[in-house]
């Protein structure tokens, strides 16, 4: 039902509320991406009940347009709605927008809103609110994380109460998908224009749930919004979001039945959770990856041979074991893997120390190379990768000193500035999103400063076409370039892991990592009653 298949530019692109794609996802073992193994879960959804879901860090930002981390994305999704949202297979589906269409040149998009939308405070939600909300995200003063992530939007207008017209800077086929960005939530125009700080204490959205209480470090409670635009959802009466900053604690709480569902599980906890009775482990292949960024404009990384030599030192399968306990896929130094469309399946790079040494010698380092690799302490897998790389690169002639630092210090002093550091990125909704976020010369986070014109051209061309064949070719070229030139070492992708009790039904683990859809979740009769 997804409109982007078999596409022509003029085609009307419509969203769908039907869930699709779960079956198309890559599976691993007998672990499910969705909680559905329980026998009575196959029945029709039951109404009511309280779901207690645990998250691994505080949801400090209640303002959806300021959300930065998964628990905050979860809150934003529970309490607010966007124009579109992301399906399990990374397509756009309707949220507040009922339907949308693009102009022929893909530069102007018209979104039609559902009728009779209302905010939690009872006031109507109209196109004016949408315009104000999108402008608020784009306003640099507000410093919303969504500012550079919702597509190249130039203008937002509201010809009438139900219609929003968005003009982009150049043709942009992925706009509906980009508008599903978790921060792109609609808030009342009055608040967006004047007093956004109000939203750090209260929530006035159009989402499936309403805020009951908010203690960011401990517990956030939401209850069903009876005026949600889809009268059949949500199924749950209430959701309690409990914060567990310690992975072991979070796992133990689920095992003990204190919680019903984990938003995410640490790879180190996954085996234990899988063994526990009454718990369904959840796993989905994702494009989330760890990399080592190299400053391609400075010595020694301005020499492609150095980068290639380093890439030849890495045992990628072993790296997946080291950093992800095996719950992941090996990377070929491109940011795409099987979880993305247009993935170019090249044979996996194997370590070759002789060749690595030779390359280093050619590059002018016959005695090897001393490097300092910086790894932030969050998440701890960054350091694991650093240590693994340090040891793996030793035989290749690299003497790497791993330096860890506080995440905030890293953000302040190293990120986007350093020449050799470990990065960590969530899956993006489209190949274009990840390429133009990280690797094109105009990328907003152009960390590697690789600035390859051939690559830029291919990505830009793919963005401006909706033809899959053409896209496959262009994205393949882009991946091949990264594969060969190694602007950044991408050795491993993570599977997303989670777990839930067997009485939780209707939950699907989303590969993007920022989509949760608790409005589809329901509890079977086996579920304990919570007050």
């Amino acid at each position, binding site marked *: 039902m997804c409109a982007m298949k078999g596409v022509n530019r003029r085609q009307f692109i419509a969203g769908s509320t039907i869930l699709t794609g779960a079956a198309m996802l890559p599976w691993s073992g007998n672990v499910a991406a969705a909680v559905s193994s329980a026998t009575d879960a196959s029945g029709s959804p039951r109404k009511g009940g309280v779901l207690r879901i645990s998250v691994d860090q505080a949801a400090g930002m209640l303002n959806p347009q300021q959300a930065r981390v998964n628990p905050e994305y979860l809150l934003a999704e529970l309490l607010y709605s966007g124009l579109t949202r992301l399906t399990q297979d990374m397509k756009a589906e309707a949220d507040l927008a009922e339907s949308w269409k693009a102009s022929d040149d893909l530069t102007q998009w018209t979104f039609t809103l559902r009728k009779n939308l209302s905010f939690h405070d009872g006031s109507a939600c109209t196109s004016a609110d949408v315009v104000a909300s999108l402008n608020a995200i784009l306003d640099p003063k507000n410093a919303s994380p969504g500012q550079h992530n919702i597509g190249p939007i130039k203008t937002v207008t509201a010809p009438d109460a139900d219609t929003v017209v968005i003009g982009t800077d150049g043709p942009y086929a992925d706009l509906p998908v980009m508008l599903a960005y978790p921060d792109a939530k609609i808030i009342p125009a009055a608040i967006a224009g004047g007093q956004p700080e109000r939203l750090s204490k209260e929530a006035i959205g159009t989402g499936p749930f309403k805020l009951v209480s908010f203690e960011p470090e401990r517990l956030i409670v939401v209850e069903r919004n009876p005026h949600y635009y889809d009268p059949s959802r949500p199924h749950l009466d209430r959701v309690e979001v409990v914060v567990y900053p310690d992975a*072991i604690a979070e796992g133990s709480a689920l095992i003990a039945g204190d919680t019903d569902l984990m938003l995410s599980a640490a790879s180190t906890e996954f085996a*234990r959770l899988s063994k526990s009775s009454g718990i369904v482990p959840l796993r989905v292949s994702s494009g989330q990856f760890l990399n080592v960024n190299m400053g391609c404009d400075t010595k020694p990384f301005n020499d492609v041979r150095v980068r290639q030599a380093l890439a030849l030192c890495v045992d990628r399968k072993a790296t997946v074991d*080291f950093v992800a306990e095996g719950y992941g896929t090996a990377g070929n130094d491109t940011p795409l893997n099987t979880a993305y469309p247009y993935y170019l399946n090249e044979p996996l790079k194997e370590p070759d120390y002789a060749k690595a040494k030779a390359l280093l010698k050619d590059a002018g380092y016959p005695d090897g190379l001393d490097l300092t690799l910086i790894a932030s302490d969050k998440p701890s897998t960054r350091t694991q990768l*650093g*240590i693994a790389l*340090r*040891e793996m690169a030793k035989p290749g002639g690299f003497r790497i000193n791993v330096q860890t630092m*506080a995440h905030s*210090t890293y953000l302040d002093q190293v990120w986007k500035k350093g020449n050799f550091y470990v990065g960590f990125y969530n899956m993006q909704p489209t190949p274009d999103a990840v390429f133009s976020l990280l690797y094109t010369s105009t990328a907003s986070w152009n960390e590697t400063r690789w600035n390859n014109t051939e690559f830029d051209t291919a990505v830009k061309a793919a963005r401006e076409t909706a033809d899959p064949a053409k896209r496959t070719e262009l994205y393949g070229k882009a991946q091949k370039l990264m594969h060969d030139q190694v602007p950044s070492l991408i050795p491993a992708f993570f599977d997303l892991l989670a777990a839930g009790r067997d009485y939780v039904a209707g939950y699907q683990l989303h590969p993007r990592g920022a989509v949760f859809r608790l409005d589809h979740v329901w509890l079977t009769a086996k579920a304990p009653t919570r007050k």
Partner: protein
Amino acid sequence: MRDVMKHLIRSPQGAVGLFILVVAALMVCGGAHIAPYDPESISILARYKAPSAEHWFGTDQLGRDIFSRVMVGARATIVLSLLATLMSMVTGAVIGTASAYLGGKTDEAIMRTMDAVMSIPSLLFALLIVSTLGQSSFNAVLAITIAFVPGMVRIARSVSLAARQQDYVSAAIARGEATHYIILREMLPNIVAPIIVEATIRVAFAIMLFATLSFLGLGAQPPEPEWGLMVSEARAYFFNAPWMMLIPGVAIALVAIGFNLLGDGLRDALNPRSH
């Protein structure tokens, strides 16, 4: 000195403490030679091995030999804690003795400020300092030093005050001795013994505080085989490979016990009453 040793060995605490610390000292000096494996070399095939003849203390998540890491890590853990205690002891003794000697309003001001600083829990204080300086072993040492100084000042001051009120100091003053002679030759030798006892016990706390800072990610940094850091890293794998955490954890506790015992033993041995 020989006298003190004799007394020390005769008391059960002193003997056991000394024994533990001699073993620890051997590890500090020769740990790298004892270690059968490279403490940092990783192995994809030897991950999560339980203790066995091949790997006495098992291996960790990267397949590193834990026995080798514990041996080599003794140096980082113990020497740095000793260093922190030593620095705080010297600083504290200088400030405390000076405060006691100067007396009056200066003493009052110094001591009330030290009291104020002591009202910040030392772990929290150390945490703030390391956050400021950046996380590394050396900065953790510095932070522990700073956090320990007020306590040392307090102790040094109280023993100096006690020493100052002794008649032999009065005798020296009445004799017309110079100030530096009184402080260095009359007071200091008598202040040193109780301060050393206190410092020995503090080393145990320094080891634990250092380990705790490492545990919170603020002390030693991977891949260093520092014990606290090893515990911290191993915590995530606790249910699958409990030895990873238990072994360095017990090592920390044992050395801390050693210093506690030695401190108590020294207290008895250095007490003139027990002679």
